[in-house]
């Protein structure tokens, strides 16, 4: 059961090895709430951290459906690894699609491919109530500095894998007097900045993403600011890429839970040949829900591909598209929990146990993070407002 067909990249031997390594360590990563270092290292060996980089900057220019397929396969084995891979590719796309011929960022993307650098992001902030499109911290110019320097300090409410990434993409107000929604993205190297965790990450699920709050500060060149307003980057790339790749993480989680439930039903059926076990009906129901879930995620991915470049690109900034991509996030994040819960009902205590081939506990716990990453209530509030003007189907 695949989200999309395997590509040359995802079929490569090195990526297949990374999948095996992700599966092997997933249980330990979850139990200890630790970074999946083995799997991320294996992805580096496969060159996967550079997959989203366009050909002109030395990458293989994997399209969003190829990145989505890789995300899906990783997430079936270890959702934390899948989510880290997805988030990293979201940062790459946000740079690559908006660098506007910047020499600094052109060179940077070449480095990502060569050095397999891992990029985290600090788009959340203490005090903005979870609204990514508002910032408090600002870019402060240092007027008398040599080489056009700027500095910032930000209290991020969460930075996933912040302690393990090489670089950080941060949203900030464009300047000290800029409005809270007048934002830019700045890329800094952890080696050249101060970063201090402000809490611990001991959570119900997605434990391997290691996403505590941080206070980050840096002084860097103004060239490290992406030369496109964040409003455009968010609408055309960061938001759709996030919702599409995250949805593939959640589809991967649900698919693995389904597959465990199916194996369980098959074993039950073998014990009494000639009769269909009662759980088989529940499995059939779940199978129908999975078909809907896949169609939802695949449809949204294809729509984005049809709009991402060329003359239809402005459609990505319309209210109609914002409503649709928010709907993808809401629906996919709910579908993944429902699928894991159904799988648990089917597997019974074999599913409730924390080990064994039918255990779905980790999948269910990981799935519960989906509704919280950009809270569904916030997206419903946004869509409720947007639907006051947007007429669906018109």
């Amino acid at each position: 059961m695949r989200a999309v067909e395997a590509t040359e990249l995802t079929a490569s031997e090195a990526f297949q090895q990374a999948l095996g390594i992700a599966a092997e360590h997933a249980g330990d990563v979850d139990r200890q709430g630790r970074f999946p270092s083995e799997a991320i290292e294996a992805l580096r060996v496969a060159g996967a951290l550079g997959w989203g980089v366009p050909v002109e900057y030395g990458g293989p220019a994997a399209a969003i459906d190829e990145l989505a397929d890789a995300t899906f396969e990783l997430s079936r084995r270890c959702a934390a690894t899948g989510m880290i891979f997805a988030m990293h590719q979201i940062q790459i796309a946000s740079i690559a699609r908006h660098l506007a011929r910047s020499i600094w960022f052109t060179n940077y993307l070449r480095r990502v491919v060569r050095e397999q650098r891992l990029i985290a992001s600090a788009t959340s902030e203490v005090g903005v109530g979870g609204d990514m499109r508002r910032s408090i911290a600002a870019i402060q110019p240092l007027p008398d500095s040599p080489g056009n320097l700027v500095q910032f300090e930000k209290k991020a409410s969460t930075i996933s894998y912040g302690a393990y990434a090489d670089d950080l993409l941060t949203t900030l107000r464009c300047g000290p007097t800029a409005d809270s929604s007048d934002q830019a993205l700045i890329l800094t190297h952890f080696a050249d900045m101060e970063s201090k965790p402000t809490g611990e990450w001991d959570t119900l699920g997605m434990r391997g993403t290691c996403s505590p709050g941080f206070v980050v500060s840096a002084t860097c060149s103004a060239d490290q600011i992406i030369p496109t307003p964040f409003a455009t980057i968010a609408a055309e790339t960061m938001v759709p890429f996030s919702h599409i790749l995250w949805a593939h993480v959640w589809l991967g989680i649900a698919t693995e839970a389904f597959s465990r439930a199916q194996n369980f039903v098959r074993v039950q059926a073998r014990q009494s040949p000639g009769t269909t076990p009662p759980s088989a009906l529940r499995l059939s129901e779940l199978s129908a829900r999975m078909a809907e879930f896949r169609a939802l995620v695949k449809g949204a991915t294809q729509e984005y591909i049809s709009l991402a470049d060329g003359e239809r690109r402005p459609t990505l900034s319309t209210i109609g598209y914002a409503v649709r991509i928010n709907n993808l996030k809401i629906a996919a994040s709910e579908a993944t929990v429902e699928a894991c819960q159904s799988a648990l009902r089917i597997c019974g205590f074999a599913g409730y146990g924390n080990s064994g081939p039918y255990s779905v506990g980790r999948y269910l716990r990981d799935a519960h993070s989906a509704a919280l990453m950009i809270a569904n209530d916030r997206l419903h509030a946004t869509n409720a407002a947007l639907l006051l003007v947007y007429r669906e189907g018109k």
Partner: protein
Amino acid sequence: MLPSTESQATEGQNRDRIRQIVKEHAGLGVDFEKVEFSTDLYRAGMTSYASVVLMIALENEFGVEFPDAMLSRSVFESIDSIAKAIESLQEAQS
């Protein structure tokens, strides 16, 4: 061909009406006297929620309906860009 003085006058009136609606509904954080026809309203602090409120108010005031393709950031970026959109809708209606 030069535009007639009559249509120039309508355009100016439209912009003044739009400016008034922006003042009432865009919830700008800046001193409104500083808002010109070309000022970027989003950079001046208009939130996406406020932009929706503004769109509804404009539809009421001008008796138009913005189609989906026009419900985008670039159309509501400034009084000038809003005026252009409304003029094109009014032309299409007449």
